[in-house]
């Protein structure tokens, strides 16, 4: 108990009073082995925690990418059909049609590693070696003009990579619209005129639900 943070011991104290049986450990589960933790603990954080030993060059990454990723993401990360775009979009984030990519939007390079290592290639996840993930991450960073063509990414130099859009993220400021404290909602004679400004039928992108298309004209 002495090792619990304060908040947990307070909760436990109140539980202790009400239901003593919960206060002590239940002795459920068993200790995880080192090999088990190693097998599953694949996450990587911005400070580099979790990075496996290894390294990979942009050049090697291009080879992995063209073999295992380009079919969906395009040779240069431009995205085939509706598959995700991984590169480009620099300078579009402020505009009307933002293209969010690793280079234009992602705040941390560690996210690229963490995500590819756990989830890509789509349909054959967790099949790449650490060296291949370093290499393909280096290649995606290169496509986004974050590292040079001759760059080799490694566990050692990983945290030196800074992403251009990192500074543009901020904490959730909601509620960001008026609450009852500021403004009681109007109930009567709230406006004089009402006009329809937009219609879904004009856009006409709703799937045809043939069997219950009850909303006929």
């Amino acid at each position: 108990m002495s090792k619990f943070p304060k908040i947990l011991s307070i909760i436990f104290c109140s539980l202790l009073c009400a239901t003593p049986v919960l206060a002590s450990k239940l002795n459920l589960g068993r200790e995880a082995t080192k090999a088990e933790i190693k097998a599953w603990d694949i996450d990587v954080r911005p400070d580099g925690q979790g990075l496996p030993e290894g390294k990979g060059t942009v050049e090697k990454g291009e080879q992995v990418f063209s073999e295992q990723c380009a079919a969906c993401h395009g040779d240069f990360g431009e995205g085939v059909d509706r598959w995700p775009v991984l590169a480009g979009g620099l300078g579009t984030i402020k505009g009307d049609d933002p293209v969010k990519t690793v280079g234009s939007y992602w705040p941390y390079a560690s996210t690229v590693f963490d995500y590819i290592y756990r989830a890509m290639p789509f349909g054959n996840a967790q099949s790449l070696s650490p060296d291949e993930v370093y290499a393909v991450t280096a290649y995606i960073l290169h496509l986004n003009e974050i590292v040079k063509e001759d760059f080799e990414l490694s566990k050692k130099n990983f945290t030196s990579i800074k992403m251009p859009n990192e500074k543009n993220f901020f904490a959730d400021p909601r509620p960001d619209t008026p609450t009852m404290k500021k403004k009681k909602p109007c109930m009567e004679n709230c406006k004089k005129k009402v006009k329809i400004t937009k219609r879904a039928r004009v856009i006409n992108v709703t799937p045809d639900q043939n069997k219950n298309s009850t909303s006929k004209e």
Partner: protein
Amino acid sequence: MTKKLNTPELSRRALLKSAAAGGVTLAATATGVTEATAAQALEKETKENPITTKQDWNQVLGDGVDANPYGKPSEYEKNVIRRSVPWLTASPESSINFTPLHELDGIITPNGLCFERHHAGIAEVDPSEHRLMINGLVDKPLVFTMEDLKRFPRTNKIYFLECAANSGMEWRGAQLNGCQFTHGMIHCVNYTGVLLKDILAEAGLKTNAKWLMPEGADASGMNRSIPIEKALKDCMVAFKMNGEALRPEQGYPIRLVIPGWEGNMWVKWLRRIEVGDMPWHAREETSKYTDLMENGKARRFTWEMDCKSIITNPSPQAPITHGKGHTVLTGLAWSGRGKVDRVDITLDGGKNWQKARIDGPSLDKALHRFYFEFEWDGRPLLLQSRAIDETGYVQPTKDELREVRGTNSIYHNNGIQTWHVNAKGDAENVEIS
């Protein structure tokens, strides 16, 4: 039910049945409604009256027990299904479908109708091979079997789960014509499971434990960062929904429950929770699930689901088919910050509002069902609902949201929805001044 009258391929018998089910048809006729469908129905009804005509089921034996060891809905309910919008995503394994809100009532979503969102398809997990690992900043890293988990004290809670992208297609204007598509990324079920804090206590949290990273066993290895305060407050590891095992598409055998917070965090097929001292900034909390503002800055860790409501009937998929007269309007309201205190309804596009009636249980971070009964005079309607939660948060208009957030933020669109109902009773998704 009378809406099936419009459906050509239905049998004569089904037609009669639906006319009978909507007893309103008869009543409405008595009050002088001249709607073509109502008149047709009455004509058929007098020729082949469902009371004076014997039905098959009045005379013939039906199926015996065990005809369906796991029961299923009536064949007349075959339109009550989840639906997707194929053009939204590149592949069905990384996609979403929608709960048919307009077909449901009360506050509980049936298990087979809870919307699905997968990032690498549905993992078919063998529960005997499933383990939950707790590692990181703990005194002793632990592994639990399903049997172990079921030996913790259990709790039952009804919570809504809403995808942060619900209504996300509507940021730039009315687009999808139906509440299933505009608001169907939500469900509300009764979870049975154990409190996360009890599981963490078994492993023993170190004093610098500040964040958790739950991770899924599916091929996307879904991972998110959760602050420890929330985890110790009310999070659950659930293994049952509405009394039965979680459905595979909802994370069988276990999923995380994070009351009031965006659905993406409720990691399905939960296999590991790492305890750490800082957030991970995983792909789903950087590339996705961050809210881009007009000035190029982006909000992160926008976990809470704001207070929101939707009129489910009438709506584009559920028009008024009985003509003018007594009409039941119904819908759903919810808030990630607690209970819903009040729902207001307008029939005239916001000129005048009246309080709706919340019926059924009013539970913390659960769906609330509201009704508003009125005499429809047959004139076009501009319907809106506005929910207010127990913290005093008032559901904003879409324009109020756009004023502060612009139109690029994709997530957390809880703006007031407008349905235009024309004189025939058909409804359309519109926006108004």
